[in-house]
């Protein structure tokens, strides 16, 4: 027994010596990048952006407006009309009329053709949409360009094809539309979330009133222009920007037949409570605190890339972010060492720079929340590791951060931070990993890293989460259903299962 331990210690020491002596590629300061800014000239933002109701851009009835800024510079981009009760009412009525008179009567294949047309127009304007998304939301241009916009387009393409095939998805049922859908989307993927909401709703023959997030209304309004260009019948898509109050008016409007919400669990619960007994249909895509589990037999370098993608993608403003790393004790030291080096190489700064990996935090409010939780992590005794990168002096930025020595009970291990902050915990056995991963009210996503196929299937099937990534993280596709277990909400978006939220079956 003793010799076995000695041998193991010796082997470990040998590995450590090898690691220490191995030549390393020096990243960080050794590699200078020249600025590679994307041009903002491609977009024209109106000084005043209006609501999109019944096919027209109109000011709010109350005349109220709010400023929308670029979170990377804090410059005002536009004044946006704020939807009030009268505006929400007008939009819902327009949607109801459009549903009754036009959209639900249209031949399904024709509905599909409109949606295809929207997808094509988005492709033509993809660069403009990407730039606008980055200017308004602060996410790196390479993500808007390579992830958000192409995926949003793909969602329209995918769902266009469902319009005349719904009966195949629900055999033995007569399929009909529900009516007016009130949809509320968050600020982390403004255009993509609008696409996730609008595309399936339209394909199933519903009409929509969509409220974009207060801080990121611009790409939804650009999508409204595309709907106009596509000659979409007026009232089929209505966009009413505003804050929480506008959202509440939409949810509570008696003529809204279906509510779809993506956002915080706290607000999701309020909505569920508010519409109980109303007969309105509801789907909720709420918060998460995903466990990313790394086993000792994983390809470690690949796993480190997955960890980085899981938590620093989109500044960690991702409901399914891998914000809890569970790493097997035997490789924890090695993984953390690599992670420390890796976050030094992340380029934090101007979102419009094509080399930027981590852009701006979406708002001052969110930045404050991240700072508060990070301070709390330090106070609770976890060990802070942060990239030493320089942050721009203007705008809202936060360096890539992770905590080691985190306990299950720490706030940073239980609450959704929604920022580039990772909580690292360790485990010894697969059972312990599963137990820790599931020991949280959320259940949106999870990641599993191991080289052993049978282990992947066993661990993924034991995760109480709606989306599980094996040896990858943060992958999305319109054909792939997305949504949570437990307090991460109910209903799915994407795939055949996503259609269920937008059809009436009899």
């Amino acid at each position, binding site marked *: 027994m003793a010799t076995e331990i000695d041998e193991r210690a010796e082997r470990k020491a040998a590995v450590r010596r090898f690691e220490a002596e191995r030549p390393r590629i020096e990243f960080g300061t050794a590699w200078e990048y020249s600025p590679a800014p994307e041009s903002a000239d491609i977009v024209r933002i109106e000084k005043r952006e209006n609501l999109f109701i019944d096919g027209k851009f109109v000011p709010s009835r109350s005349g109220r407006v709010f400023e929308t800024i670029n979170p990377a510079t804090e410059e005002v981009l536009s004044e946006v009309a704020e939807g009030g009760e009268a505006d929400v009412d007008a939009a819902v009525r327009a949607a109801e009329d459009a549903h009754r008179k036009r959209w639900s009567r249209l031949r399904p294949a024709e509905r599909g053709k409109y949606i295809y047309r929207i997808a094509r127009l988005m492709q033509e304007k993809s660069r403009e949409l990407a730039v606008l998304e980055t200017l308004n939301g602060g996410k790196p241009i390479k993500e808007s360009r390579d992830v958000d916009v192409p995926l949003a387009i793909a969602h329209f393409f995918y769902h266009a094809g469902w319009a005349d095939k719904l009966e195949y998805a629900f055999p033995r049922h007569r399929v009909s539309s529900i009516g007016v859908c009130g949809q509320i989307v968050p600020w982390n993927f403004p255009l993509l979330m609008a696409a996730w909401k609008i595309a399936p709703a339209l394909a199933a023959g519903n009409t929509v009133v969509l409220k974009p997030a207060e801080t990121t209304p611009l790409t939804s309004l650009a999508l409204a222009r595309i709907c106009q260009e596509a000659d979409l019948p007026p009232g089929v898509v209505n966009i009413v920007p505003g804050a929480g109050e506008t959202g509440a008016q939409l949810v509570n409007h008696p003529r809204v037949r279906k509510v779809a919400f993506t956002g915080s669990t706290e607000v999701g619960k309020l909505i*569920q409570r508010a519409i109980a*007994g109303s007969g309105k249909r509801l789907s909720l895509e709420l918060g998460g605190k995903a466990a990313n589990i790394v086993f000792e037999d994983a390809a470690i370098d690949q796993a480190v890339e997955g960890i980085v993608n899981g938590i620093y993608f989109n500044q960690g403003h991702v409901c399914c972010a891998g914000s809890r790393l569970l790493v097997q004790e035997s490789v924890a030291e090695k993984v953390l060492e690599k992670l420390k080096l890796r976050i030094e190489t992340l380029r934090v700064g101007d979102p419009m720079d094509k080399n930027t990996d981590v852009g701006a935090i979406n708002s001052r409010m969110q930045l404050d929340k991240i700072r508060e939780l990070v301070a709390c992590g330090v106070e609770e005794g976890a060990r802070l590791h942060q990239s030493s990168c320089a942050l721009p002096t203007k705008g809202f930025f936060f360096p890539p951060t992770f905590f080691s020595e985190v306990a299950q009970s720490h706030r940073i291990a239980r609450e959704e931070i929604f920022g580039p902050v990772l909580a690292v915990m360790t485990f010894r056995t697969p059972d312990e990993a599963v137990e820790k991963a599931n020991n949280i009210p959320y259940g949106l996503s999870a990641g599993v890293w191991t080289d052993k196929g049978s282990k*992947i299937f066993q661990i993924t099937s034991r995760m109480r989460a709606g989306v*599980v*990534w094996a040896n990858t993280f943060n992958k999305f596709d319109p054909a*792939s259903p997305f949504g949570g277990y*437990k307090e991460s909400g*109910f209903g799915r978006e994407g*795939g055949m*299962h996503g259609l269920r939220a937008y059809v009436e079956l009899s």
Partner: protein
Amino acid sequence: MSGKNARPRNRARESGNESLQIRKTYKLYVGGEFLRTESGRADAVESPRGAFLANISRGSRKDLREAVRKARAAQSGWASRSAYNRGQILYRMAEMMEGRVEGFEKLLRETRGSTAAAARREVRAAIDRLVHYAGWSDKFTALLGTVNPVASSYFDFSVPEPMGVVGIVAPNAPDLLGLVSHLAPVLVAGNSAVVLVSEKHPLASLELAEVLATSDLPGGVANLISGRRDELVPHLARHMDVQAIADAGGDSGLSKLLGEDAAVNVKRVRRYSVRDYASEDAQGLDFIEAFVEIKTTWHPIGV
């Protein structure tokens, strides 16, 4: 009960060779055991004409909590049984019911005043329903699951998984068929259940516990609580370890409260108002689909 009918049993008593009927004590069914309520409270059950039939336990918040605890403990084991095995156990439930047909019919006649023919139809329909769902155990996964053609190098698939602990507010009537119609699809999907049985006519449902107990269904997978709805429903709706509720209680006021309270942990609530439980529309894949979660797994393709 009135003693007026000159039934043989009574005659025997009159003649002095009496053999007194052994009445059943109706208890809660929790964790595979027949228990009285911890609260010590009882409610009398009467026939439609007002004759005393039996006392039942008036289940309490603590009974409900205990039932959820047992249901939680039993759920993962039940879910990890093979679909084949779950199907066999549901079929076994039908077998056990078949052996007790007369008892169930009698209870329906006594408690609801059902005619002999109606009672027979309801019991037959309940047995058929169990057989129907027994056959679903190894089929619904294929029908509710998908392989998703994603535009990247991943094998991407979605499968139904049990939600966990499901609360069932069973209809007041038909008490037996209604209960079986909601319980069987919840169980076949691998969930465990905590059922609030018919408040008005609980006896046949509590009798069903004896079927559950003798069908190889692991203890705790199905738990039956009798008692008052207005007392129990809020606790069920607010319980943090219940994932979903099938609300077939048919009380819109209580349903609204249930829906509101269910938001505490984002419970999935499916409200049912089934017009005809005997109809084939009151069974099928939709009843199972309501109590599964869809999990999507991304598995890389490569060498």
